[in-house]
């Protein structure tokens, strides 16, 4: 039963309406969780961190975006692998649709981190292992997007990007550990991540925002995939019918 459904919905024609139906749900979930999460962040969490002042509230954006940026890359590679194994067009579209959001989160993590670094560390940037590997992750996303947009034929673009995502995901842990090691050999003496223990309300806030971003990602990816499906299948009968019915 489940198997039949899987293959049914992996065809663009039946995926398109399904995605259309679920997108609003994910969007609403994202919005609600986001509002609640930020409420917790700004009104429930301890008003002042004695060492850092108000600036520490950046954590509620910083940590979720950093987590999501790493998580999305893995999901992207999984979709690419599924595309290679099952040869479904939809998988490649999903991988491609996730990349811009991943890049956005990686950028936000870098940016909020830098904003936060100035008041706490007194500098925008240090060449610390975690920071550096986040930067490299951002480059990997950009590479993925650049390759996709440099290839005109959509089929070829999808497969090339899929392969790149797989190669990248093998390398991400290698990069992570190499950089970790590199930095511990030359740990900068004065600057260290401030390891303040988190209160529960903080943790709740961070988790809420993370889930909100998660649903946001799903919603946005589905919208992108829908657009892509329409563009690629615009000559097929079901799209023609869709337009005819005035649903779009």
């Amino acid at each position: 039963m489940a198997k039949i459904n899987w293959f049914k919905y992996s065809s663009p024609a039946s995926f398109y309406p399904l995605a259309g139906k679920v997108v609003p749900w994910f969007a609403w979930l994202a919005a609600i969780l986001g509002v609640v999460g930020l409420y917790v962040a700004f009104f429930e969490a301890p008003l002042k961190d004695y060492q850092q002042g108000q600036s520490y509230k950046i954590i509620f954006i910083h940590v979720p975006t950093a987590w999501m940026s790493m998580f999305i890359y893995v999901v992207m590679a999984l979709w690419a692998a599924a595309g290679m194994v099952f040869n479904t067009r939809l998988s490649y579209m999903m991988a491609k649709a996730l990349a811009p959001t991943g890049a956005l989160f990686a950028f936000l993590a870098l940016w909020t981190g830098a904003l936060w670094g100035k008041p706490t560390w007194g500098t925008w940037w240090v060449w610390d292992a975690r920071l550096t590997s986040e930067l490299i992750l951002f480059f990997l996303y950009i590479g993925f997007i650049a390759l996709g947009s440099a290839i005109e034929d959509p089929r070829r673009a999808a497969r090339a990007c899929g392969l790149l995502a797989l190669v990248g995901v093998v390398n991400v842990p290698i990069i992570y550990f190499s950089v970790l090691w590199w930095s511990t050999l030359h740990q900068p003496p004065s600057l260290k991540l401030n390891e303040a223990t988190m209160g529960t309300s903080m943790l709740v806030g961070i988790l809420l925002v993370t889930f909100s971003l998660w649903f946001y990602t799903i919603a946005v990816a589905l919208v992108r995939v829908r657009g892509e499906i329409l563009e690629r299948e615009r000559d097929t009968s079901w799209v023609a019918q869709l337009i005819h019915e005035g649903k779009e």
Partner: protein
Amino acid sequence: MAMLEVTNLACARGDKRLFSGLSFSLRYGSLLYVHGPNGSGKTTLLRTVCGLCAAEDGDIHWDNQNIRSLGEDFRRHVSYLGHLNGLKDELSGFENLQFSTKLAGLGVADQEISDVLARLGVEVCQDLPSKVLSQGQKKRTALARFLLHKNKLWILDEPFTALDVHAVDVLQGIIAEHVETGGMAMLTTHQEVDISSGDVKHIHLNS
């Protein structure tokens, strides 16, 4: 018994569907002309048959097996010449052919290569680097590969362009001989040629 069997083939470039529902089969000793105006998808069809392009839909079988799953065992039987000649500029025609036969795992004597080059009227490329050859001389050298590999299925995309009148005659003779001795050939051309040996078929795209 058909060797090459194409069923219900559909090809697209970008988002344009070029043809669909194309079926034909080729057996030993037959020749297939692919006709069609500019842009009708002849090149695309030829590349798809030899496995360089992916089809949108449909199957291509060789000896009742899918060519994708056959892989090397299919490629072993095919020679293809497209719009590019496949010659390295820095190597002489002779060296190019040496490389190509070795890569195919064939042991071909140097003398045989020289003979084929002479038959095609390009002795000149025995020493000259391919780079400085004229268009027609390059094409002839590329065609020499077909005579050396002795594969079953020849796929030729506009092989007569750039050839002078004499060379066109020679090539027609070569193709006719190949088909008569039990080979198969698929070709496109906009020029008037007539090779009528063997079992001749025609496909018209976009007609």
